[in-house]
């Protein structure tokens, strides 16, 4: 068997090894690359920058541990910026395994800015119901979440009474912005369909890189005011708020991984056409 034939029928574990080396190397040597913000990420950034101190946002943290690698950096960066701007946060999740992730994110960021639970941020927890819950939140948050993640009645949380002129925060429109970080269903598309269209609440979203192209039509139509796509999106946002985190750190590794895949495609095609010329290619 010639070299090109051996390459063409290479055991995929060698490819896995090459990928592992390509992704690990930049992390080991602490390689850093400058990050350029895309127009969609810029929209995400600008919508958060428009918020004033005391504004309330609804944070829909809809992902589970599978999406942690891509979306945790995004969530942490967003929380950091919102706390820094003294924006108040009402957070919840529609994914059963999502609540502890939001709790950990709060616990990582809130102490940096001396934020107090119940005054500056609230964790409503998880509710099953998907789109039904989204629509219900547009009508009454208390009907959906009578108590928070820790079992405290919402009425006893000062944040839930910090709407305009001291009015209660009782529906999504009592907040200024919907910030959605999601990885699948229910997620960005459902929030756009059920909430953005129905209640006209401005919305920005962070999602997995694989889903981002699907939401470009919503960005172009104005239904989404900003979009972060995957770890690259997280890196772009971290760069814009000057808070380098796992997003920026991961960019070198992701860059090398992408280059490796491109080289693999080129190599795969080269050996295929070479072997075909020799009359020995696999179908």
């Amino acid at each position, binding site marked *: 068997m010639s070299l090109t034939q051996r390459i063409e029928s*290479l055991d*995929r574990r060698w*490819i*896995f090894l*090459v*990928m*592992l080396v390509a*992704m690990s190397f930049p992390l080991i040597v602490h390689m850093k*690359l*400058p*990050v350029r913000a*895309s*127009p969609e990420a810029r929209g995400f950034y600008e919508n958060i920058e428009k918020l004033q101190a005391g504004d309330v946002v609804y944070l829909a943290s809809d992902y*589970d*541990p*599978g*999406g*942690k*690698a891509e979306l945790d950096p995004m969530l942490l960066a967003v929380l950091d910026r919102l706390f820094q701007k003294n924006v108040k946060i009402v957070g919840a999740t529609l994914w*059963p*395994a999502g609540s*502890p992730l939001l*709790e*950990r994110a709060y*616990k990582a960021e809130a102490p940096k800015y001396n934020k107090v639970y119940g005054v500056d941020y609230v964790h409503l927890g998880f*509710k*099953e*119901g998907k789109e*039904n*819950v989204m*629509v*219900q939140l547009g*009508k*009454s948050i208390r*009907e959906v979440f009578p108590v928070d*993640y*820790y079992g405290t009645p919402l009425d006893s949380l000062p944040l839930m009474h910090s709407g305009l002129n001291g009015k209660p925060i009782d529906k999504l429109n009592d907040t200024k912005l919907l910030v959605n970080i999601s990885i699948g269903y229910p997620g960005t598309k459902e929030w756009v369909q059920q909430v953005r269209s129905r209640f006209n609440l401005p919305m920005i979203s962070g999602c997995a*890189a694989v889903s981002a*192209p*699907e939401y*470009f*039509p919503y960005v*172009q139509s104005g239904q989404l005011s900003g979009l972060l796509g995957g770890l*690259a999106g997280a*890196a772009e946002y971290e760069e814009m708020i000057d808070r380098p985190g796992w997003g920026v750190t991961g*960019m*070198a590794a*992701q*860059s090398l*991984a*992408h*280059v*490796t*895949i*491109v080289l*693999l*495609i080129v*190599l*795969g*095609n080269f050996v295929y056409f070479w072997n075909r010329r020799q009359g020995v290619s696999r179908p």
Partner: protein
Amino acid sequence: MLRREVPILLAMIVGWFMVGEFFFPWAEPAGTEVQQMAVIITATGVILGVANVIRINLLKVSRRERDWRYSILLLVGLGVMALLGTILPVVHAAVHGGGWKIGPFNLVGITDGTLFDRLYNRVYVPLSATMYGLLAFYIASAAFRAFRVRTMDATLLAVAAIIVMIGRVPLGEKIWDGIPLLTDWIMNVPQLAAKRAILIGAALGGIATGLKILLGIERNFLGSD
């Protein structure tokens, strides 16, 4: 008649009412009530789902079917997490007990500092994240093996894919300033047009099926005819 006609009628009545609620504001209060019922029914469905999981896996163990040992593992994991997250908190609240701890971990509840949270973060999170992380390797393997530029379409696809892959990471700008701009153009023009068309098509398909259910034409959600 009860088995098929009643569910179909129920689906039609509730379905049409909810469609109407979207267009007629005076129906909104009643629509809100129906949505709350839907939230409760969906939540109840989770309980049925868990009961089904237990039933199927117990059957597997009792009949010593293939991989029955994994079913034991599943049932133990389910039992432990249910005990810590649901049963113990209810019992604790009922007996108004003090702190129930094992080592440094609170046995009651699911929040930070509890044994449930520890198991979630040390077992479930790494397992789940690892499975998702496998995709990177599988993509590389699939790209090497299957991405063949045999036709003009495939060539265009390969070129676009390479530009976007390089343009979406910082390395692209380092290689050439124009790559990110080209990437943005590909994502915002041809890609977006195609995605929008597929989105419209898929949405129409979904709406049409929904309409068929509302009109009682589609009955496959009940099982075979």
